[in-house]
């Protein structure tokens, strides 16, 4: 009996082991504290914690910050850090789900054209809506553009191939992306006075972050990432291919549609809030695959947590390296993300 019990203990999916859970959580908390503490007005970790507690009712903790520091912390830095966290988590988790849904390790959240659609939407808003690179119209227009582009990709991909569904969607995404990018470039050239604004939006960043942006993006990101996390086991089933997954009782086209809808809604909301931030959706899931496990039971939840922490840290660099100017965050994610990923890639090879 004891032998059977111990045998059953070995018959488990690895999931996320306890040390990795702890490490990922510590990474995120550390990143959030760095994000809140670093800036022209330095604020210590204990001050952050005490100030946070002082804002909670019934605790009667004394707020050690003066009014200016408190405003900097809670009205400027906190929304920026939170927005970076939810965008980073969303992009990483969407990337991991696209990689699983399309059997394509190079898939990123923009695979099906969400970036090109959002880019066109933003460009149209800037060119014809006279919104500069902030305001309400721009994120809405980017969000709608992103969703519309993926819907077009989906329809095209479905009509193209019932046999090799995954491949036909990827090709449809490339087609839609190329077309929309051409339209966007045309509009941009016709309104060359908007070049700077469009360019600034496309490079992405959190310099205009505020709580209302967090309120708009958070529900989409919460629902989308929860949906993807709940599908992590089915993503593992998809790893044996569409046919075998089907013979295991999975409705593959429906599963793929659910994953695409979830990842797209969240990504479009993230892009609308922050512009186009590349690399997070590829580097974060693959780093987890190389360091922890390739099972989606680990990749999906860890991508959410690590992606959030990664983008918060990238944003800290974006706003401090050439302070008081800001670097586009996409430059930071690529400049630091790519070499880091190269190191992970090399060391994982020597380990095997």
């Amino acid at each position: 009996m004891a032998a059977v019990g111990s045998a059953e203990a070995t018959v488990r999916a690895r999931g996320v082991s306890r040390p990795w859970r702890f490490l990922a959580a510590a990474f995120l908390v550390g990143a959030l504290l760095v994000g809140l503490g670093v800036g022209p007005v330095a604020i210590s970790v204990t001050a952050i914690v005490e100030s946070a507690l002082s804002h909670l009712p019934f605790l009667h903790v004394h707020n050690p910050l003066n009014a200016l520091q408190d405003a900097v912390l809670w009205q400027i830095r906190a929304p920026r850090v939170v927005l970076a966290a939810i965008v980073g988590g969303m992009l990483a988790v969407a990337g991991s789900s696209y990689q699983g849904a399309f059997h394509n390790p190079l898939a990123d959240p923009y695979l099906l054209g969400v970036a090109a659609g959002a880019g066109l939407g933003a460009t149209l808003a800037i060119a014809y809506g006279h919104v500069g690179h902030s305001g309400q119209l721009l994120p809405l227009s980017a969000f709608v553009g992103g969703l519309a582009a993926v819907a077009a990709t989906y329809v095209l991909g479905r009509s193209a191939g019932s046999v090799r569904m995954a491949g036909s969607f990827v090709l449809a995404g490339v087609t839609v992306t190329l077309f929309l990018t051409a339209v966007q470039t045309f509009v941009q050239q016709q309104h060359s006075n908007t070049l700077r604004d469009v360019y600034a939006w496309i490079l992405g960043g959190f310099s205009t972050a505020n709580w209302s942006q967090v309120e708009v993006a958070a529900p989409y990101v919460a629902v989308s990432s929860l949906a993807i996390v709940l599908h992590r086991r089915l993503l593992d089933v998809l790893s044996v291919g569409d046919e075998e997954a089907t013979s295991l009782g999975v409705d593959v086209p429906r599963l793929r549609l659910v994953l695409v809808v979830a990842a797209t809604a969240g990504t479009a909301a993230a892009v609308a809030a922050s512009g186009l931030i590349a690399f997070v959706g590829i580097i974060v899931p693959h780093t987890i695959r190389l360091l922890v496990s390739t099972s989606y039971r680990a990749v999906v939840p860890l991508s959410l947590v690590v992606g959030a922490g990664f983008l918060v840290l990238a944003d800290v660099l974006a706003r401090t390296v050439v302070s008081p100017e800001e670097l586009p965050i996409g430059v930071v994610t690529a400049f630091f993300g790519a070499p880091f990923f190269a190191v992970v890639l090399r060391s994982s090879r020597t380990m095997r």
Partner: protein
Amino acid sequence: MIELRDLGVRFASTEAVRGLTLEVARDEWVMLIGPNGAGKTSVLRALCGLLPFAGDARIAGRDVRSFGRRELARLIAFVPQNPATPSELTVAEYVLLGRTPHLGYLGVEGRRDRAAVTHALERLDLLPLAQRGLGSLSGGELQRAVLARALAQEAPVLLLDEPTTSLDLGRQQQALDLVDALRGDGLTVFSTMHDLTLAGQYADRLVLLDRGALAVEGTPREVLSPENLAAYYGAEVRVVHDDDEVYVLPRRR
């Protein structure tokens, strides 16, 4: 257990299977043989819902098309010719995938599922390898892992598409012996087979397909005659009968 009546499978311009009628009894092992392109694989794929088909296909007396995907997957375990074996999954994780049709849509495995997987791993001598990655297994061990996943599905019908391709002679025999042993627990096996001598030794009954239609059906002794193999394979063979076994030997022309 399996009844096919006037089964037809069409691809764009060709008829892969035409008017096929046959039955596989409970606990029987029936093998489909026939030259390349005869439609063997299409029959299996139609049966487990991977290809649309014309005619009638029944499992346990019920129309295959009336089953939901998960329901069908609880009745039929299908092992394709070249199963995907993601090198990074562990043997345990891979075999756990076989429990998918028994779980709710977003469900995770419970005690009952782990017990079924443990049983399957035990049956195929894989328990010591449960934590190993599929990428580190030998060809024969991989084949056993694939069979274990099918067994964990706890389906009464097992469909095997060319279960011995890419295995060496000894592993071919081991794989077929394993399937044969599993039949002891009550398992109906319907497979395709390339190697005629092995087909003759393990099958209860052979069905020879030719261009999608049934050509000859019967015991190995009846089907594996030099005349049949010349007519349908265009092969010149000597058939040796020895101790109730049939051996098909190719001869140089």
